[in-house]
């Protein structure tokens, strides 16, 4: 595999990037094929299937009366199976958030070039119990004007583009 400038990490070694690129020192480049398949299980399987339908589904425990999102088959507080499937809204409030200058691959975002920092947030979903939320992105908002308790709503992909993934929701945006 060809070695490019971007591949060579800046480390404490005495070797210069150029020495590797020009083959002055011998090296091997390799990309292990790290594929995985993760079983969704019944709870997240249904959750993802409903996202494709443009709905958010949660699960309720009839003992502690919590409505849990994302749904789970087992109540970790009551130590018993959960009971009912409950649809919740696609609106909520910002619980926590962060303004991030790196993307999810740990690459630096070109902020000086005008790229908006990404703003991941935990959003407490309306209809679920207090504190129950999902991790998603905020957009259509000034990153520095986000506040705790801000009301937001999901922005969905068009139905034909949804595949049953958390990214079927593009992001959450503020609502009045």
């Amino acid at each position, binding site marked *: 595999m060809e070695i490019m400038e971007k591949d060579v990490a800046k480390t404490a070694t005495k070797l210069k990037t150029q020495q590797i690129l020009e083959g002055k020192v011998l090296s091997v480049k390799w990309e292990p094929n790290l*594929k995985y398949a993760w079983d969704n299980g019944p709870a997240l399987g249904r959750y993802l299937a409903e996202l494709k339908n443009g709905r958010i589904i949660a699960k309720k425990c009839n003992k502690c009366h919590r409505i849990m999102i994302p749904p789970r088959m087992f109540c970790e507080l009551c130590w018993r199976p959960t009971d009912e499937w409950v649809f919740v809204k696609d609106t909520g409030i910002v619980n926590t958030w962060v303004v991030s200058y790196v993307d999810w691959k740990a690459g630096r975002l070109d902020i000086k070039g005008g790229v908006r920092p990404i703003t991941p947030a935990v959003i407490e979903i309306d209809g679920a119990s207090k504190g129950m939320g999902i991790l998603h992105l905020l957009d259509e908002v000034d990153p520095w004007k986000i506040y705790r308790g801000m009301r937001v709503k999901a922005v969905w992909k068009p139905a034909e583009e949804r595949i049953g993934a958390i990214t079927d929701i593009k992001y959450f945006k503020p609502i009045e």
Partner: protein
Amino acid sequence: MALIERYQKTTDITYWEGRIPMSYIYTVGRAGEKFFREIINGRIFGARCDTCAVTYVPPRTYCERCFARLEDHYVDVGTRGTVHTFTQSYEAYDGTRKESPSIVAVIRIDGTDGGLVHWLGEIDFKDVYFGMPVEAVFKPKKDREGSILDIKYFRPIK
């Protein structure tokens, strides 16, 4: 509702597929430089520690037993050896199935205490035996690039 919700059809089972992007560059190091540069010349090199009477193949920069520097003690060890262990492999590097199996062997280079893992060629699996004398078959010189694959395989010495 029961904890176990039974799937009625296997097609109801869903899963999430992903791929973890990862790549690395491994520089072969000082002894590795000597080893692979000499492979281009069609030679196999080791490192000799006279104090311990040990010859390492591939070469090392220092002796693992007495920690002496061996960088001035690289030696041409020839291209012949014997089959130390061997097996037949039906899988490629990445775990995919090969059309035809290959014979993989540890080859002890004659007169040394080291060896190389490589393929055996020009022989049937049923004819391979422990201690079988073999020699390295190199690629044509113009195709060599300083890789262990510059040796195509080891073949029996007739």
